[in-house]
């Protein structure tokens, strides 16, 4: 079943889509590699579904071209693109049994009865639906319907599998289970997966690359750790998780990165300071910051006062305010939080130089 040769390579060049005067997608260029697991991530209304529909052939772009394995498929109708698609809400055929649903794409391709039987059987096995073959979709649980949708979209060995928020209707436990299963299916089939979600942790956990959308624009594409640790702008930084932002002044390039003035302390960072000017925002993820009684000279640190704590079980979330009033949040071991709060006034927030990065001041 593994057939990386058949996995499609997709190239979108300057794709735009207008609905009347509304721009749903703007000048979007993106390469999707053979066999990769790409996640489209963005807030509601950012154009993720629209882009997926363009890939599937259900929506025609107003500008731009789309290539699959080097062939221009911009005008090719959906039924000839052979992209597997899993819709939000699954869109199973309610009048057909599980078996018939999965057999449908093979039947329309006029495969022999024996071939259909074998491949449907294999697929049912693979997604763990044994014993449910004769049931109608309405008789299945949400997770089982999800499996039927996956099986139906994969059974004809499509070059690309498109998934539009397939897990949004599932509860948290089942969601985790289905995510693991989808990752396994991706490895087993070797097909290119394009997956839409607005859940950032799901995106980071599953994909080989993440594409972040906002207002119909593609803001950044990269590996999960790349976009998480080195976001291209403030929107991406904030969208991917909690982030602390401190104003930084007098920024200048240094030996292996840059330095700047954070309140009254000089701090250093690894990234380049090119293109941000002398004032910018220093951004650090909360999990990279720790609490200390003091910061050694040359160590990145800033004085702050703990104002509030929220017990989260495994850790405590601590809210602090710096001397100049910047709000910072960190996640720390429970006993550290207690002692920081009891100190009342000043503690030090410290972080490794390589974990801080610069964002343009004020911009998005």
């Amino acid at each position, binding site marked *: 079943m593994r057939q990386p040769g058949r996995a499609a390579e997709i190239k979108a060049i300057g794709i735009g889509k207008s609905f009347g005067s509304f721009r749903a997608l703007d000048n979007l260029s993106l390469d999707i590699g053979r066999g990769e697991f790409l996640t489209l991530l963005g807030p509601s209304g950012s154009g993720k579904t629209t882009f997926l529909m363009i890939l599937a052939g*259900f929506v025609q772009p107003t500008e731009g071209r789309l290539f699959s394995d080097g062939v221009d498929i911009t005008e090719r109708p959906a039924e000839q693109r052979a992209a597997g698609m899993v*819709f939000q809400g699954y*869109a199973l055929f*309610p009048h057909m049994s599980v078996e018939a649903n999965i057999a449908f794409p093979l039947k*329309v391709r006029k495969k022999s009865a024996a071939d259909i039987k074998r491949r449907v059987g294999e697929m049912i096995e693979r997604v763990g639906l044994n014993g449910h073959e004769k049931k109608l979709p309405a008789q299945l649980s949400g997770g089982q319907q999800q499996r039927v949708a996956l099986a139906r979209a994969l059974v004809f060995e499509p070059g690309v599998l498109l998934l539009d928020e397939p897990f949004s209707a599932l509860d948290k436990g089942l969601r985790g289970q289905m995510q693991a299963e989808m990752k396994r299916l991706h490895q087993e089939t070797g097909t290119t997966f394009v997956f839409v979600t607005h859940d950032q942790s799901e995106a980071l956990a599953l994909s080989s690359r993440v594409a972040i959308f906002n207002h119909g624009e593609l803001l950044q594409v990269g590996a999960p750790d790349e976009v998480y640790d080195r976001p291209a702008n403030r929107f991406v930084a904030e969208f991917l998780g909690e982030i602390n932002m401190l104003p930084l002044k007098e920024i200048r390039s240094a030996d292996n990165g840059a330095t700047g003035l954070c309140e009254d302390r000089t701090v250093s960072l690894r990234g380049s300071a090119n293109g941000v000017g002398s004032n910018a925002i220093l951004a650090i993820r909360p999990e990279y910051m720790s609490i200390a009684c003091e910061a050694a000279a040359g160590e990145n640190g800033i004085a702050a006062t703990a104002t509030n704590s929220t017990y989260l079980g495994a850790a405590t979330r601590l809210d602090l305010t710096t001397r100049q009033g910047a709000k910072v949040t960190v996640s720390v071991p429970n006993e550290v939080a207690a002692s920081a709060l009891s100190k009342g006034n000043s503690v030090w927030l410290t972080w490794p130089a390589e974990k801080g990065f610069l964002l343009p001041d004020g911009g998005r």
Partner: protein
Amino acid sequence: MRAYLSDRMGAALLMAPLLLFLVLAYAWPFLGVVKWSFTLPTPGLGQYNALLTDDLVQSVFIRTLRIAAIVTVVSVAAAYAITVVWVRGTPAQRLVAEFCILVPFWISVLTRAFGWVALLSNRGLINTWLQAIGFISEPLALVRNEFGVIVGMTHFLIPFAVFPLASAMRSLDDRVLLAARGLGSSRMRTFWSVFVPMTRSGIIGSAMIVFVFSLGFFVTPAILGGGRSVMIAELIYLRIFQSPDWGLGAAISVVLVLFVGALMAILFRYVRPKQLI
């Protein structure tokens, strides 16, 4: 609105006048008809016995069932096509379809029947035209026979067949159709193996409504059948008003009502009343 009506007492109260009207106008007189069927001209089961042996009554019953079946198939098929355009067409197409569906409701059944006579009779528009272009030399028998009756009834019943179909088509999830196309199915194939089966409840509802209506048709067959293609309702009329044979007329009525009642019972088993509007 629904929240208020879900109060069962309130709903019952609101329906009471209608129920009272139905009892006074239909149920009570019908009991009288049932009584006649057992008492006229002499008490006993004689009239029901006659039903089973009377060749005329039986041939009319069979003709009625045959016409109703044909009218049902033709009306539902035509209504299906119109409804697809009405529900899924472009805004302009929808407007035209809606017009076609609603206009017949403004024209009385009599007007429509005579309209068909004008079109279909020997000296009607169709025969005159066909003769004028030399396509035929003798006029075709298009009216005063079963054909005319079927045409008139179908025309009358198509709008009624539309509503259950429209309701089924409106509740259909578009994504399922997209899914079918994405899986490689052509538009044609998607229509026949996904769209049509998914509107099955609408088709059943629509067919039942048309069939039940057809069984009781009176004006249209009387005019377009020209006395040669008598259907059951006309036969009842003839038995009661022309050859005073009230007992037999009543017995036919009772059988017809029971038959329709049984059909309705089956209909409501398979389709919820809500799906019919």
